[in-house]
Each structure stands twice: as C-alpha cells, then as structure tokens.
C-alpha cells in the first residue's frame, strides 16, 4: 500500500541551512549536506530545500548544494525558491533535484507551470500555494504571505493541476509558525478538489497534527520544519505514531 510521506523542509540561504537543526552531535548545524544525510538516515521519505537567498548573485550556491546532496542521498529531493523561468527548472534538475517547486512565479506567469511540465514532465513540477483565509474562503498570497493575489485558493489549485502540476505544496499562512496544526478544512477542500497529491504544510506543533493532516485533511504527504529541526520529535518517532493511528508509513 502506498505510504503517506513525511518531508522535512530545510530553509537555505547563502549555502547554509538557517533556523538551525538540532541533531545530536551534528558537527555543523548549517551544513545542508550533513543535515540531508542525517534526515536520510532517520527515514525521511523526501527532502525539500527552500532557497530563501534574497540576492540573485548567490543563487548558484543552491545548485552546488543540490549536487553535493544528490551524490550521496538517494531519496527524492525537491527544491523551491526563486524559480522564475524554465531555465531555472532545468538548472535545478541538472544539479540533481527531482522536483522543482514553483510559487510566486506561477502566479506571475502561470504559463511557466505549463511550459515546465510539458518539457520535463508533471512528475517534477510542484506548485506551492500559500493560502490565507479571507472571510468565507481562502486566497492565494505571494511574497511569503505579504501580498494577496485575489485568487481563490481552490480554483487556483484546480488551475495549476490543469496546467500540469504534478503535486501541490499547500501552506496555510494563517497557521505557519503557530504550532497549532494544519488548516485541516483548507487542506481537505483542496485535496478533494484535485486528483494530484497534496503536501500539507504550515502549523505542525506535535505528532497528532501530522495524523490529523492525513486523516482529516486527506493530505498525501506532510511537510514540517521546526518540530524535526529542533529535535522535538524524530522522523521515526513521527512515523511510529502515525502507524499507531492507522496510517500507512514507510518504516
């Protein structure tokens, strides 16, 4: 049976992982390669790297990181952040990324999603949707939740599927950083609206939140950062908890 996936997310800037990662005896808390290796050994099903480097001068650093990680970590790698054109997708794939996540640029230029998926296949195109509740519905936001687009998040998810997205990374901007759990209603509504897999993100504070994301939110995968980075929970601990609650996982 297909397992629900657990995906740690690493924020990278200037070639370093930020927000810190708290593995026991980790020599260099900012080294993306060592952190990736440790998550791989811990049983992560995939890894997501989010490049938050502000200046375009340093963008090539993420390529070197992905090359180094891909040479020794043999699980799927997703990279997002700053993907603006098909050439960016190509460079990341050539460096060893298996999937590329497109966020703001999908809003600015939806054709990018179609062009990239036509060229490289839907399997490697993830569209990241940052959604925030506005009245009785959810709207798509960009620029880290600062700018509204006026787009309805559910309609947008369907449109991204129709343009060739192979997967959606859905982040609730209301919940992100709150540790109060996923926005389950949002997750469920979007998961039900499309046929492609949904990765739930934003708000995980404990292991029950992961279970809720799958069971109540109908997510196909759950992404989390801080609960894993700071050593509050291990990946295997999370998986065992999910399994105890009747969720199929890879142990």
């Amino acid at each position, binding site marked *: 049976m*297909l397992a629900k996936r657990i995906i740690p997310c690493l924020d990278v800037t200037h070639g370093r992982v930020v927000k810190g990662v708290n593995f026991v005896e980790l020599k260099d808390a900012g080294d993306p390669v060592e952190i990736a290796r440790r998550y791989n050994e811990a049983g992560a099903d995939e890894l997501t790297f989010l490049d938050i480097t502000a200046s375009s001068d340093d963008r090539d650093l993420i390529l070197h990181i992905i090359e180094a990680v891909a040479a020794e970590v043999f*699980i799927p790698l997703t990279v997002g952040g700053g993907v603006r054109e098909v050439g960016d997708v190509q460079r990341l794939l050539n460096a060893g990324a298996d999937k590329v996540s497109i966020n703001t640029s999908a809003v600015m230029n939806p054709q990018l999603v179609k062009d990239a998926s036509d060229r490289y296949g839907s*399997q490697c195109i993830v569209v990241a949707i940052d959604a925030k509740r506005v009245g009785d519905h959810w709207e798509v936001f960009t620029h880290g939740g600062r700018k509204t687009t006026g787009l309805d998040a559910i309609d947008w998810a369907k449109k991204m599927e129709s343009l060739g997205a192979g997967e959606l990374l859905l982040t609730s901007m209301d919940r992100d950083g709150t540790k109060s759990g996923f926005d389950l209603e949002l997750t469920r509504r979007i998961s039900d609206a499309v046929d492609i897999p949904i990765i739930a993100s934003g708000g995980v504070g404990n292991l029950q939140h992961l279970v809720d994301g799958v069971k109540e939110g109908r997510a196909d995968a759950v992404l989390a950062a801080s609960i894993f980075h700071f050593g509050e929970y291990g990946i295997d601990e999370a998986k065992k908890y999910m399994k105890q609650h009747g969720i199929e996982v890879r142990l």
Partner: protein
Amino acid sequence: MKADIAVIDYGMGNLRSVSKAIEHVAPAASVVVTSDPAIIAEAGRVVFPGQGAAPDCMREIDARGLRQVIIDAAHSKPFLGICMGMQVLFEHSEEGDTACLGILPGTVQHFPHEAMVDAAGNKLKVPHMGWNNVHQAAPHPLWVGIEEGARFYFVHSYFVQPTSPDVIAGFSHYPFPFTCAVATGNIFAVQFHPEKSQNDGLTLLGNFVTWNPGASETACDMSGAACA
C-alpha cells in the same frame, strides 16, 4: 574509452540521480551518460532511464538515432529500464496513442479514473507518487538482498500490462495489482526509481552492475515465447 555502464541520455529528465547512484554502488566502474550510439553499442551494460511523456520519449529517441542501438542492447547485454525506460520497451502506450519500441509484448495504460478508490472509499491520487510495497513475483538475481514487500519510490500515471505473465518479476498495488518489474533474458525493467529508493534501491542497482545473465537465459523477441 569503452564504458562499463552507459546511461542512455535522450533528453528526458534528470539522469544525474541515476548516474550518481550507479557510481555510488560501482565506484570502480566507468559510468557514462551518453546519447552516442557507438558508446552505447560498446558499453558492457546499459541503463535506460526516462521521465516525461511517452510521445516525447519516442520522438527524442528517434531524433537522436537511438532506436536500433537500444533494441540491440536489450537483446545482447545486461539492460536495466527505469520508469519511462520500462514503459517504452512495450509495444504501445495509451499516453498520446504512442507506438513504442516493441521489445516486449504488451501495452501501457493509464490508471483508470473510476478504479482510483481505496478500500475505505478514499480517493487515490494520480500520479501514483511515493513509497509502495514491491512484491517479488519470481526470484531474480536483481532481487537478492531485498526483502519481499520492500518499499520503493514511484512516480507515474501509467503502468505496463505485459502480454505474457511470464515476464512479470514484481508487482505492486494501487489499488489493484499492477506490474512494476519485468524480467526476461538480459532485460530487467522497473516502474519505480531505484536511484531514489534509498538502501533497497542501491541494493538493486548494485545487483545490476554485477549481474551476469546466464548463458541459459536468452534475450526475448517479440514472440515472448522463449523467455524462461
């Protein structure tokens, strides 16, 4: 220099993962990612990966003049097909109504929308993406060291339906059983991605780089009859 292992590059997707994983399990081997028919023809072993859509794959194979060298390799040397590189070995794909290489008898079909519901009534997503159990239908040198039911990483929307059940080396469930590995003669081909399947994937690749299909095994032609 003659390559020990040629990874066929026909412009379809990320080959770096494949070549890196093979280099990892065979550090002493020369691994070449190539679209040169001469290098492929001379290589000791051939890996045929691929992602994307079947019509594009076939077009790119022909644009690079690789059709015959792929067919020849599949009949003559240890040959590993991965994902799209498995699908296009068959005769026809439903994806874009595409005529494929016809090395193995059978077709490639989309997961049927109406069947994509699990036992609890939940919708199953397509593409089939993630780690699923692979059941070994028959013993094979490439399965050595891999537990029955081990999980491998999949991402695909189409699956193969071999005409002859004899070639089925492995199957998975989504939600119905589908063929995810085929073996005949010197061909082994998988729907999942061993290069992305952590330890078990590396074990399979390690088995491939040392695999010597026995003299008693013969490559299979379109008849499929002699493929014991």
